[in-house]
């Protein structure tokens, strides 16, 4: 298969997620977090947080908060069962907390192939903003996720 180069510049619809304490506690349990601040509100407050902090990689969940998270990949010619996650990068501007509603805005920034087309790479960048739309103001939450999928 070939990923259409027309995919470059494709803007995905924004996806919002209410960050819930229970979901963060479940994430902390399965990753066997030992710091109770990541699962217990009192422990979080005792550690100086205003609520349970969002762990560094949980932000990846926002874009998955839809019935068919990979519809966009199929739309550009990718067989999802053959997708591998190649790289993932987060840049943090502030800590996010339970109780916030965060919105992910993603755009496909590059598509290229390697090994004579045996591997195809899709680079997606996502900005995550809070309800104040803090992205771009410099004082708020602005996370950039570099998220190349690898299709083969």
């Amino acid at each position, binding site marked *: 298969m070939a990923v259409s180069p027309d995919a470059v510049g494709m803007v995905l619809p924004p996806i919002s997620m209410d960050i819930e304490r229970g*979901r963060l506690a*479940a*994430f902390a*349990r*399965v*990753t*066997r*977090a*030992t*710091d109770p*601040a*990541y699962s217990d509100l009192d422990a979080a407050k005792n*550690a100086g947080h205003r609520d349970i*902090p*969002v*762990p*560094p*990689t*949980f932000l*990846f*969940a926002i874009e*998955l*908060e839809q019935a068919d*998270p*990979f519809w966009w990949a199929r739309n550009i010619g990718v067989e*999802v*069962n*053959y997708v*591998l*996650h*190649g*790289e*993932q*990068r*987060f*840049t*943090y501007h*502030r*800590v996010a907390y339970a109780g916030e509603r965060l919105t992910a805005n993603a755009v496909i920034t590059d598509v290229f192939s390697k090994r004579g087309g045996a591997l195809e790479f899709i680079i997606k960048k996502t900005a995550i903003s809070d309800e104040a739309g803090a992205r771009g103001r410099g004082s708020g939450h602005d996370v950039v996720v*570099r998220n190349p999928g690898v299709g083969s």
Partner: protein
Amino acid sequence: MSTPTDLAVGTELAALKIDPISRTTLALFTGASGDTNPVHLDHEIAQAAGMPDVFAQGMLSMAYLGRLLTDLFPPDRLRSYGVRFAAITPVKGEPTCTATVTSIDESGGERRATLALSVALADGTVTLTGDAVVAL
């Protein structure tokens, strides 16, 4: 959390050893992470995709490595965190997460350490490499 105070280039931070990853963990991480890709849950679908069995979500290893970071540093110190997924983690795999300080410099008006990160299985297979920048 015990934030290390005497980091220097070459300092190895405390390794984080994870118990063998069970199928239950894969199922629970599906719910917690929102990654519902069935190749991590359903043996038949994994085999149809050419894999011998289900395998762990890459983001599970990235979450474990993130735990190593948040066990040592308050979350507001983390500036960036990135990884490259190098090999699949099979079910029952036993990852160990490690971090080493590779540089310390002044940037953005603060002192920052750059860490080289790695996750390896018991047989030595490196499943993930990466880096993180933390403010000291």
